[in-house]
């Protein structure tokens, strides 16, 4: 469980997160909201790139904000970025291995097995020895997910993991994301504008608007909420 208490982030005069208080249950959770609602800022706080003005984040009993940024991966935090960040110059295997060797203490022993398992999980075994530069958008997005699940992650933050992918590939990715809690044993927080992806992956969803929690609960109920429809979609029709 991730317990967020009274989290505020200000950039100059702009209030990006405004006393956000929320409890994410285990499993796959959605985090949605209009542009500028503070979703990525929340991820950046968890990653340690943004220092909040106030508040606490306790994840699985660990005070996350007290850890140096790079040590959070070793604790079990993983994330992906809106613009994919697969390392162009390395092979697919080395991309995943880099995360493994820097986020676990187990050294070389279990490395190959762990990386191969992660690549198999996302279906990239065939291209393991190819350089990322030679690959397309789909593979790059899937590499990011493989990087997120390798090792023993506890909490995975996915920031629009399907951005730029066609529907069929988004659906495939959705199936993979949905199976992360069970197969990898990590809690997932998924930020995406694609409601069908969020619905497909997440049993539970929270809605942010102007840095405040607008609603949270089972995904189907949240998406039917009138306030959510008004704030998020501007209409009463769920696309």
């Amino acid at each position, binding site marked *: 469980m991730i317990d967020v208490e009274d989290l505020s982030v200000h*950039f100059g005069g702009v209030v*990006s997160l405004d006393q956000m208080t929320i409890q994410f249950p285990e499993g796959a959770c959605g985090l949605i909201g209009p542009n500028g609602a503070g979703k990525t*800022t929340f991820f950046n706080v968890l990653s340690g790139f*943004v220092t909040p003005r106030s508040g606490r984040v306790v994840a699985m009993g660990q005070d996350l904000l007290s850890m140096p940024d790079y040590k959070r991966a070793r604790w079990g935090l993983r994330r992906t970025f809106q613009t994919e*960040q697969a*390392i162009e*110059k390395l092979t697919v295997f080395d991309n995943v291995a880099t*995360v493994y060797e*820097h986020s676990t203490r187990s050294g070389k022993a279990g490395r190959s097995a762990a990386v191969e398992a992660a690549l198999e999980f996302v279906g990239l075994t065939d*291209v393991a020895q190819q350089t990322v530069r030679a690959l397309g958008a789909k593979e790059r997005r899937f590499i990011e997910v493989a990087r997120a699940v390798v090792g023993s992650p506890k909490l995975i933050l996915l920031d629009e993991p399907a951005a730029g992918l066609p529907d069929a590939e988004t659906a495939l990715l959705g199936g993979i994301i949905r199976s992360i809690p069970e197969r990898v044993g990590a809690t997932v927080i998924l930020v995406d504008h694609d409601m069908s992806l969020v619905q497909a992956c997440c049993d539970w969803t929270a809605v942010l608007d102007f840095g405040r929690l607008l609603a949270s609960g089972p995904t189907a109920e949240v998406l039917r909420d009138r306030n959510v429809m008004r704030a998020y979609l501007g209409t009463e029709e769920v696309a």
Partner: protein
Amino acid sequence: MTAVVSTPASSAPPAHLPLLARITTNRLFEPVVVVVVLLVGLFAIPSFFDSYWIANFTQLAVFSIVCASAGLLYGRVGLVSLGQVASYGIGCWVTMRLAFATTLPYPVLLVIGGLVAAVIGVMIGLPALRVSGLYLALVTLMLAAGMEIVLERTGFPNGGTGFKGVVTTISDIKATRRPSFAGTDVAYYRFIVVGAFVMFMLASYVLSRKPGRAWASIRQSEAAALAAGIDVTRYKLWAFALAAFMAGVAGGLYAGSVPKGMSIDAFNRQSAIFLIAVVIMGGIYSLWGGLLGAFFATCLLKYLTQNVFGHQFWTRFALSLFGFGLLANLIQNTRIAERKGVEA
């Protein structure tokens, strides 16, 4: 070449590729080229060229290490450092001083010179960690200027006593001793080629291991590297240390190649900028770029000056082309660095 890109991974290259592509994508291609270049450097060049060109190839071999070290920092980690010439100078000074003061074998002196340069390189790296791109270039340019001032005051050791080891009477000036097995110019040239080979292998080894992958990650995006658990500060300092070690060893190798009395001209600010310019011209990602850059800076420039341009104006024109390339690259690099900031 698009065929190479779209083919699935396999150990042997597919048969439908053109012959040239089949050769260059073979796993043994690069090791074979390395051996050929090494053999040419060790045996072909000394037997085909006179002493004037051997001196130029000696400089090429030394400079290739410095170019590779600067290329490693820039191409593999994304750090534009103009401080490599300072590390080169530090390694040269320390090796010379110890060569006069001790009877240690020359390879040991080289390692000590490299280590001292590495320690100072890390100290330089610490304050430079907060800046990148053009700004890092400016900070390290100050360092290069500082090094120039220090060297103007101390000079290079030439057989005297005391900390500086400098004598003032011209007749007392001694050349730095060479290893007993590499006394002649040609033998010392070969010794440098072997030294350069060892440094390139060291760089290549480290690049293929955990630090190399961490650097590739940092170069792509520091935010993503941090999120992957990479201690960005530590790996940047590690890069500064390795690059300074390589440049320091190069300085030590250079020390023995100069007949009498080392000039400080090779270690001034202009040299620092010139170095980055030729490194960019040679190519920053591959270590081969270091060799090519050094070739531009030494033999090619000498050849053009003597045989083609035959006039100062054209040499300067060639140099200003290097400068133009440097500026264009730095401006572009700074823009990329700005775009890569953490997305809010």
